[in-house]
């Protein structure tokens, strides 16, 4: 049977003590999620209600993309908006009206909360309701918060998707079981996974987010959902509140991870084991072959993850199980015990799992443990390189296609390349 129970190397870290730290956190806020979410939902617009800082963050994170007529913007709160909330509400309505008049193709408008809007208690949920009256049915107006005080980086996607769950239509009571794949994936990856799922014989399958923001899939007690991304705690909860059932699985990274992830769906839908094996075998073998290219560079290398996206634990598991890397410390901004249980079980016992951050202390641990490669944000990468450490900047892992069988080789290459570069440079 395929990889249902990994060979017992050690106990794994399923109940590992977690190093919980607090102090300075070197992380993005959830607003950053807009940068990839707006690509995934081409008929949606993301309007941040925030400060010049929020606009500046988006522009810094979006880089060059900002110039391609983007579907996001910031309504920058100014001094006079702070004087009275009534005025701020009026101003917001004015901005929204102007925006929607100029962009008639928009079908969903997200009003995205920020730290300043949360702190002054500007009620964006109310604003969404107020404006809905004027714009439905043409435009749906949805609200979530991507503020730094509430969300870290990819949690912005979680908040966004969770805000869509109440708008999902109710699945008919006696409806046939349907599979829902949750989490924004690049279209090409989504198509690959959908093909595999359909080849398994699961005909009724949908994705959240949907490519058309208004064509949301239905949800109900007959919905079974797989998380494609590890940072979707609130979305999962919202789906469960509507009766959907979460299928626990490792995340679909690498040959094994993807197999196990598909296996969870196959079992839930009663797919014949032999059939399952024959469907996944070609992709799985391709993935394994692709991984061989990077194995020589990565095997035995020690890796240190600083917290960033919550992808750290599944990626550490992938690199450890499928490429023989040794995780030293795996930091995550937030640890969802239940969703991470299948991952934790496959990490070696000696791994330090840390949640939260005190960045200076964590950097001391990087320096003391001298890993071969350190996964970290762009604010830390060059400074660590200057100290002689090889780094992999973490954001690329969120923007690149890395899930599924046919991206496994690319994913390994993302980690192998900095090491190879370190070895080839003679300057």
């Amino acid at each position, binding site marked *: 049977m395929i990889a249902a129970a990994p060979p017992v190397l050690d106990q794994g870290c399923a109940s590992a003590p977690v190093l919980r730290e607090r*102090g*300075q956190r070197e992380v993005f806020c959830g607003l950053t999620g807009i940068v990839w979410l707006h690509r995934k939902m081409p008929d949606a617009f993301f309007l941040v209600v925030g400060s*010049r*800082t929020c606009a500046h963050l988006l522009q810094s994170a979006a880089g060059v993309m900002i110039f391609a007529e983007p579907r996001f913007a910031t309504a920058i*709160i100014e001094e006079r908006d702070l004087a009275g909330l009534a005025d701020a509400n009026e101003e917001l309505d004015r901005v929204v009206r102007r925006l929607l008049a100029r962009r008639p193709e928009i079908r969903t408008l997200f009003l995205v909360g920020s730290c*300043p809007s949360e702190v002054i208690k500007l009620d964006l949920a109310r604003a969404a309701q107020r404006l809905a009256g004027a714009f439905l049915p043409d435009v749906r107006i949805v609200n979530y918060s991507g503020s730094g005080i509430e969300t870290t980086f990819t949690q912005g996607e979680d908040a966004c998707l969770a805000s869509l769950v109440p708008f999902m239509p109710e699945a008919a009571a006696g409806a046939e079981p349907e599979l829902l794949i949750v989490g924004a994936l690049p279209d090409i990856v989504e198509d690959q996974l959908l093909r595999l799922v359909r080849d398994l014989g699961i005909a009724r399958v949908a994705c959240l987010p949907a490519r058309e923001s208004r064509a949301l899939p239905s949800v109900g007690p007959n919905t079974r959902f797989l998380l494609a991304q590890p940072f979707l705690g609130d979305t999962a909860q919202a789906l469960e509140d509507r009766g959907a059932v979460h299928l626990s699985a490792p995340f679909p990274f690498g040959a094994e991870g993807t197999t196990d992830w598909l296996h969870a769906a196959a079992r839930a839908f009663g797919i014949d084991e032999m059939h399952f094996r024959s469907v996944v075998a070609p992709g799985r073998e391709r993935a394994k072959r692709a991984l061989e290219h990077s194995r020589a560079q990565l095997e035995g290398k020690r890796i240190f993850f600083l917290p960033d996206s919550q992808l750290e634990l599944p990626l550490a598991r992938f690199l450890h199980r499928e490429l023989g890397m040794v995780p030293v410390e795996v930091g995550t901004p937030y640890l969802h015990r239940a969703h991470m249980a299948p991952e934790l079980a496959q990490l070696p016992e000696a791994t330090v799992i840390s949640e939260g951050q005190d960045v200076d202390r964590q950097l001391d641990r990087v320096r003391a443990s001298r890993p071969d490669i350190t996964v970290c944000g762009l604010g830390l990468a060059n400074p660590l390189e*200057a100290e002689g450490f090889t780094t992999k900047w973490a954001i690329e892992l969120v923007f690149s296609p890395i899930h599924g069988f046919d991206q496994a080789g690319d994913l390994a290459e993302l980690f192998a390349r900095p090491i190879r570069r370190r070895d080839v440079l003679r300057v």
Partner: protein
Amino acid sequence: MQLSVWTYEGPPHIGAMRVATGMRDVHYLLHAPQGDTYADLLFTMIERRGKRPPVTYTTFQARDLGKDTAELFQSAARDAVARFQPAAMLVGASCTAELIQDDPAGMAQAMRLDIPVIPLELPSYSRKENWGASETFYQIVRALAVGDSSRPAPCQAGSPRPKANLLGPSALGFRHRDDIVEIAKILTALGVEINVTAPLGASAADIARIGEADFNIVLYPEIADTAARWLERQFRQPFTKTIPIGHGATIDFIHEVARLAGVDPAPALDMAEARMPWWSRSVDSTYLTGKRVFIFGDATHAIAAARVARDELGFVVCGLGCYNREFARDLRAAAAEHGVEPLITDDHLEVEEAIAAAHPELVLGTQMERHIAKRLSIPCAVISAPVHVQDFPARHSPQMGFEGANVLFDSWVHPLVMGLEEHLLTMFRDDFEFHDGAGASHLHASAPKAVPLPDQGGARGGCEPQGEPATAAAANPPPTPPLAGRGAMEGELLERTLWTAEAEAELKKIPFFVRGKARRNTERFAEERGLTTISLETLYDAKAHYAR
């Protein structure tokens, strides 16, 4: 509320970070939510620094808000002082902390740290990055500069070893690193000693002895003006007003510095590497004469660029603007001198409209104008922040001094089609190698494709047969293809005007690199006269109208 996709300036605490990061032993404790650390990557990525900015963020989260954030703040302060052992500490709030009304200054002062603590009040909802940098530098100078304000003015003229401070360069400054090198060369030639360069590279102790200089050299008024004015009052240090960007301005600057230092300007005036005047007078540059240039950036760089454009390259300034209101008055004066409407705005859409309306042949601006120009298919060079990573180059590339003038010449002329090439293209426009689809020879990516010769009558590959009889097509005017880079404004014009086939065919005979302008000019001409069709006559009437 202001709807914004792109901002020319960050919030004021980014300006404070630029000052702190430029200095050596000053630490900045910023009361800010988790997430505001994104700003670090501006310094580590765009400027490619190998060290983290000296900034500790308290990174509070929602769950901290109800509680005592003072505790969080104070432990962050203690840790930062213990770990980094700075000589002085800046404390302040980002936009969110400003709203929760903690009092960073009060909290830090209550701790009685044994280093100077400089509180920063940076109003995030009304001010921006440059203001933040300026205010921070001023507060640092005020707090740390020691000296007797009642002492006589520093011995200026005739001082045996005149000393000057270089004020303004900071982290994340456009070419600040290299400008300092050029200015230092000039000062060395003049025999003027640099007392302190600040904030870039300065320590707290350097700031303490800033009053020992005879005068100040203000390189970037956006950052140094406030501090320089205070130093003038406090220590009677006069400061320079000329920004040494461009050949002429560099000469004026040398005279101004020599006067303040009481030395002979001659040794600095004939520096060997001043090639820009000859390059500009050489015959290859003749075609630059009268090129229409649109200039936008921070006020200092924009005003300086306008002078260089007109006086040193023979361009015509057809638009001049800046995004920083603090220097709007200076910009208005410069715009008046060039006879154009000043454009003072931080709304990039307004800038885009102004550029489209001015029909320039070259745009000098920021990263943003580079993208606007690309969209409108107009050549462009970058003269001012905000800029991207490629404008923090590895090679020496100042904007100031004589070498800076050389750099300006090269980088502004480069995007324009080279003069000789322009002539060849015009003369041989019917030649198969110079046909419209061939592209410029210096662009390898667009090397000429195999294209049928005109007399073969083929119409593929972008080569319109020149001999096409106009009458044959007249009955059925060809649809106007949507040319890359044509803005919405032209689209609107086109809806109301119609090219006759004859005029359209004639237009195609004009070389491709000036055709877009000819089309725009003609359409504007027709629009202004309320013409509903554009005939051959309209085309040539317009040409006569716009002839220079």
